[in-house]
């Protein structure tokens, strides 16, 4: 056999490859620049982390969300860093803690000059962007930089209405008589993803659902009315006030906690139906494989825990959020649950990482892409929780550090600091701070808190 030199071998290989390509034997994708993924972020409001059918809820049926979890990675240890609408929303957009982006409560104004959202980096990377839905940050609704389509609402202080909610479509207020908002926003979302364009897109779909006053569409009203609610916490009773977090002294008992809870579940089912519709649309358009769909909630919600209905403190049920990423093209072992702690501030770096866009330099969050690719199990050991005074809600300003096993909480005012074992004591009833275990942990917790807060300590 004739000896072949290295030069001859390379030349032969190149000719063979060229021939095979011409003949269509080798996928063009191997040589082409990889197509950028489309990005869809879907945000629900006040949805509890455990309110998905696949989380074992006693009666809630959520085939849409279950499908997303089955086909993606479900981050079952996901949290918000401030359990309140506006700060959490700003954290999703900027990848920053609230003390960093400045939207500390539902009254502080979003600074459109200072705050950079991930949309800007995506725009630079060639994306066309849409923000559709609830903006709900204080101040005049801004023109968000680098967003090509902006549909939002300002009714009821930015909370919107479930029915007949006027929309501000690219700056023009438009009446929407007879429209149910979850469906209306999904219609606009689908319209956006159907638009023909050479560019990849990023869609931020931010729902009103399932914020109070819960109102399902007519066909879903009462679907859960016969369900047994005995799984609600023992301390639940029918007249827990939204505002005082305690009793109805002064608050009219128009609706009971049980009635509100059922309407919450029905409104969530309505959302799920719209999510399923959107996923079906992606299938029909042939976009599912190359589209990363992220579902998250802005914060959790208490339904009777601590005799509270609301979200304004560091209770487990308030800080845990649903968080699922489905990205068929970029996920190894889909259908798994990731136990590492994921945060709302991780959204921005994750989307930018998936898009191959320039990272946000001022980000506090960490990309979850390595978890999707199954290269890492977790991206952090702890995080900062902060809650700033939000008048008139009866909750003290508080700062804390959450590790995988414990939470250290400090409060402004008269309330004492605490360390709680979140695994054994998710209701935070047993303060360990004076115990040997707590005393051993305290210095490290204090150090972490000071580090996260830039040396500001425990906020006293």
């Amino acid at each position, binding site marked *: 056999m004739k000896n072949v030199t290295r030069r001859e071998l390379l030349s032969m290989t190149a000719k063979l490859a060229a021939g095979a390509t011409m003949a269509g034997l080798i996928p063009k994708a191997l040589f082409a620049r990889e197509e950028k993924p489309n990005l869809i972020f879907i945000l629900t409001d006040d949805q509890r982390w455990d309110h998905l059918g696949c989380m074992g809820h006693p009666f809630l049926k959520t085939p849409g969300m279950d499908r997303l979890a089955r086909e993606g990675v479900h981050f079952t240890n996901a949290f918000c860093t401030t359990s309140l609408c506006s700060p959490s929303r700003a954290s999703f957009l900027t990848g920053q803690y609230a003390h960093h982006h400045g939207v500390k409560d*539902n*009254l502080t104004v979003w600074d459109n000059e200072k705050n950079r959202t991930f949309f800007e980096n995506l725009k630079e990377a060639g994306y066309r962007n849409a923000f559709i839905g609830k903006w709900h940050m204080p101040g005049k609704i801004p023109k968000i930089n680098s967003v090509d389509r902006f549909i939002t609402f300002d009714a*009821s*202080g930015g*909370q919107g*209405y479930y029915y007949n909610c006027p929309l501000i479509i690219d700056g023009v207020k438009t009446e929407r008589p007879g429209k149910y908002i979850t469906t209306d926003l999904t219609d606009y979302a689908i319209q956006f993803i159907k638009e023909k364009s050479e560019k990849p897109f990023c869609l931020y779909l931010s729902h009103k659902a399932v914020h*109070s*006053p819960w109102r399902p569409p007519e066909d879903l009203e009462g679907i859960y009315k016969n369900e047994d609610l*005995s799984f609600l916490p*023992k*301390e*639940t*009773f*029918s*007249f827990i*006030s*939204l*505002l*005082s977090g305690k*009793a*109805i*002294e*002064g*608050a*009219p*008992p*128009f609706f009971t906690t049980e009635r509100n809870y059922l309407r919450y579940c029905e409104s969530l089912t309505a959302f799920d139906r719209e999510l399923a519709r959107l996923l079906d649309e992606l299938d029909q358009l042939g976009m599912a494989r190359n589209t990363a769909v992220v579902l998250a909630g802005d914060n959790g919600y208490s339904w009777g825990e601590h005799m509270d209905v609301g979200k304004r403190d560091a209770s487990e049920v308030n800080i845990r959020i649903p968080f699922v990423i489905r990205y068929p093209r970029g996920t190894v072992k889909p259908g798994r649950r990731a136990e590492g702690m994921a945060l709302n501030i991780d959204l921005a770096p994750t989307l930018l990482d998936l898009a191959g866009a320039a990272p946000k330099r001022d980000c506090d969050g960490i990309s979850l892409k390595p978890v999707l690719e199954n290269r890492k199990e977790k991206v952090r050991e702890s995080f900062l929780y902060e809650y700033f*005074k939000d*008048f*008139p809600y*009866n*909750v*003290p*300003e508080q700062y804390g550090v959450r590790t995988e096993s414990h939470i250290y909480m400090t409060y*402004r*005012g*008269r*309330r004492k600091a605490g360390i709680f074992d979140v695994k054994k004591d998710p209701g935070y009833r047993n303060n360990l701070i004076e115990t040997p275990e707590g005393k051993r942990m305290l210095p490290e917790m204090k150090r972490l808190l000071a580090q996260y807060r830039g040396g500001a300590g425990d906020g006293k």
Partner: protein
Amino acid sequence: MENKIRQIEKAPFLKRFIIPAGTALLGWLALHWISENLGWIENREVYKFAMNTVHFVLFFYLALNGFFVYRIMRMRGADLTERIAGSYITPLAYAIKEIIRVSEFFTLGESFFYCLCTHPVLGIFVGQAGLLAVSEMLCRKYYKKRNLYDANAVTAGPMAVLMVSLISIYFFFLYDAGGTAFYVYGELYKLLFR
């Protein structure tokens, strides 16, 4: 609304003011204490029933307090200022309790402003005003039937108070499920404290 009722003697201050207003106050304190101390009940259903009952009663006790206090004081010859003051003693005590409670998280100014919040306190206050107006007109009607009152039972003063009260209640709690009223309150807070 001054006393045009014949044959109604003005009872001593203790009987016409202290006893009706004081009894209402003590009743509220007792109910409030009970509502705070039911955690010992282990049985879930019993606990829920007890909490629901006591809070239901507590709410209506606070909300309707003035209606009854006002009438008793009226029948004991208390003048208008006394009747209004007596009817508002319990809601006022409730407001003070709330101010003390929320001062854990808010400044003193904010704690007082908290009482203007539609849901817990202001709602009770404006609702109470409407009830006093109804109570006044019902008293007049009662005496008029017995030929003890000369003028019209329904007059512009109490009717105006009732209308303002009803409109406020509608705006605070019913219109947009209270969302718009709460937003306005928030904007007022920003103006004053930010």
